């Protein structure tokens, strides 16, 4: 029998409402000896390497806290908004969680995360994390998260095909188009599949920034969208033109996210893809034939005068507001984010640790695959507009993504950019 979905949803809500009275306790009694389990949410795929790593951390923690059992739950990136939302509504969250670094402010505002200002002050390694990376964690004078790892996006390409076809590493926008066309012709694959949904904003942003544009700027407490500037418009025209003009990605890409473009690269159906340094181990794990055949280069500026500023994406760690064991949760968090463990984790996943002293080591600047990413990140790492409204504008209203998708579907560029520009102005100043 089909029962009204809305009614079922209402039933869930009703239960949530009924249960909320008991769920809002802050657990501040101080005595945590009765707590025998700790739940940790990790975002992304549970590859064997990642699970091994977490198991090691957990045993170290359990040895320090006898009788406590740590459970790690894996939450897919694309599902995580919903999972957090349900947890906040239902009062059943984890104790410690990973959070996308651009989303910390949004979740803090929704009441999901605990205020850890005091704990961070007493934590020595914090002084080696750049203040810029903490910008995403501070809301109204309180701190809600700690940077754990970071990374940026660039190009991954098929080294074997580039060698075979004698394509030089692209240094400017024209090179990218030429390389993609050549791959498409010679290999019968998609030259450069474009992501337009989900995290697509972070793929188009470097083109805008590298061209001297901005997503949005703040002055006097008011945010102004930068999408309508000529620099930004030129970048948007280039990005969408890859599909509409150069045809190195099909019109169907108006419905694609980066999981899809990555899967196309993984299955050998694409010659290049824009992705993070962290994607390489994932891709090689899924398709062993690509081991050693993946090269990388940074997203260039239009004229080739260097790498474009990229978005420093990554994850922070936070304590869930309703945890019954805030002390143990903080203890776990600092174990996971110790210099040793955070670096080990970053190396495992091809991300970068956030400690500036560790970042300067030769192992990042001299690795041929990592160096383009490391260089781009060390030039001018950018973050998205630091306002809780950004999350809503980017994740719920998907202003930039809808703009890109609609232009690729064939709507006029000028009108779409003007529309998105106005929407962003409104949404950021709510």
């Amino acid at each position, binding site marked *: 029998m089909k029962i009204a979905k*809305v009614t079922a949803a*209402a*039933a869930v*809500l009703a239960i949530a409402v009924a249960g*909320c009275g008991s769920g*809002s306790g802050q657990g501040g009694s101080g005595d945590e000896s009765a707590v025998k389990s700790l739940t940790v949410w990790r975002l992304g795929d549970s590859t064997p390497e990642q699970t091994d790593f977490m198991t090691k951390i957990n045993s170290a923690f359990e040895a320090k806290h006898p009788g406590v059992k740590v459970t790690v739950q894996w939450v897919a990136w694309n599902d995580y908004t919903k999972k957090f939302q349900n947890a906040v509504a239902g009062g059943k969250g984890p104790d410690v969680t990973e959070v996308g670094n651009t989303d910390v402010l949004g979740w803090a505002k929704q009441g999901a995360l605990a205020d850890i200002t005091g704990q961070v002050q007493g934590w020595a390694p914090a002084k080696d994390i750049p203040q810029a990376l903490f910008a995403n964690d501070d809301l109204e004078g309180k701190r809600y998260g700690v940077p754990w790892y970071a990374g940026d996006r660039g190009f991954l390409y098929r080294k074997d095909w580039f060698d075979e076809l004698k394509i030089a590493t692209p240094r400017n926008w024209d090179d990218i188009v030429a390389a993609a066309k050549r791959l498409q012709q010679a290999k019968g694959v998609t030259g450069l599949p474009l992501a337009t949904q989900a995290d697509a904003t972070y793929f188009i942003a470097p083109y805008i920034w590298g061209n001297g544009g901005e997503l949005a700027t703040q002055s006097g407490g008011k945010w102004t969208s930068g999408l309508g500037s000529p620099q930004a418009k030129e970048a948007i025209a280039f990005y969408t033109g890859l599909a509409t003009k150069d045809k190195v990605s*099909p*019109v169907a890409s108006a*419905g694609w996210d980066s999981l899809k473009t990555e899967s196309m690269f993984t299955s050998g159906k694409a010659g290049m893809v824009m992705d993070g340094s962290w994607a390489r181990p994932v891709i090689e794990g899924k398709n062993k034939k690509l081991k050693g055949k993946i090269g990388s280069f940074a997203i260039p500026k239009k004229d080739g005068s260097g790498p474009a500023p990229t978005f420093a994406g990554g994850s922070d760690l936070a304590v869930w507001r309703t945890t019954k064991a805030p002390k143990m949760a903080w203890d776990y968090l600092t174990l996971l984010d110790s210099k040793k463990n955070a670096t080990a984790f970053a190396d495992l996943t091809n991300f970068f640790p956030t400690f500036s002293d560790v970042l300067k080591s030769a192992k990042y600047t001299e690795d041929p695959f990592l160096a383009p990413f490391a260089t781009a990140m060390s030039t001018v790492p950018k973050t998205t507009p630091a306002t809780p409204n950004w999350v809503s504008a980017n994740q719920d209203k998907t202003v930039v993504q809808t703009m890109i998708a609609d232009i690729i579907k064939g709507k006029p560029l000028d009108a779409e950019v003007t529309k998105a520009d106005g929407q962003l102005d409104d949404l950021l100043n709510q």
Partner: protein
Amino acid sequence: MSQTPTATRAPGRAFSPRPAPRHRPRIGRRLARLTPYALLLPAVLLIGGLLLYPAYRMLVMSFQNVGLPQISGVLPAENVGAGNYTDVLTDPDFWHALLNTALFAVAAVSSTLVVGTLVGLLLHRLGRVMSTIVATGAMLAWGTPQITGAIVFKFMFDDTYGLANQVMRHVPAALTRPVFGNVDWSEHSWVLSTQSEYFLLLLCIVWMGFPFIAVSVLAGLKSVPSELYEAARVDGAGPWRSFWSITFPVLKPIFSILGVLSVIWDFKVFTQLYVINGGLTNKDGFNLSLYSYSKAFGFGAQMGLGAAIAIILTVLLLIITGLYIRQMVRTEGLA
């Protein structure tokens, strides 16, 4: 609530056709009178707890400003009067979703009924072995969980890996051009335009919905006396004529019920559309259910707004089914 026979024949009436048993004590009589209500109680409690109370909460919520802070108890819920309703009714997304919902319901109900009836007629004609095979196939489609079916359809119609595009590539362009226009089938997306997305949804819903219609029609057909068809054949009626002159009139009550049920089901499709639409990013593809869900559970969780949309959807459905049932009762004297 209909009364049970025990309740109508209340014992102890002065002129009861059946004499009340003289030896039954008063308490027993009272108990007997209460029995039907006692038997109804579990069902009432269940429906009350699982359906009526949540529905009531939803109604209350639709007049309040409810978000995550209110649900988790950080802030109290404020009364906003009809504010949620005016927000919804002035939102162009709502009217777009309503249009999608209504057009889809019309297309889906008629297609499901036609396909289901045809398969029902086919099953009636087939021999034992073939009808078992066809019926098993149909039952499998019916038994497939909604989410599984939707994922399979989505994958079959995937732009890069899907079977549909591989097949279409081998169909001569002369055949596909009149329907689809000039399409490059190598990486054609079936979900980019709203029409195409709903076409995919239609296939999925009809595939999952026709077996129920087919089985109901078949059950009805079994009860039609075969003499009627023999007489029709003697009079020279072809299959088309005998369907409209015999089968349809005899089965009309069944079609009426199936019609109401299909309208209710197809008006509030959720699972399949959620999967085919790829979540909540593509607002052009929303129907009312998805629109309501996106407001209540999307980022920013405006649950009061979501509740208001759900109430509007419910009222719309009640009006449509109410009109339909009234029409049925009028024309056929059917209760």
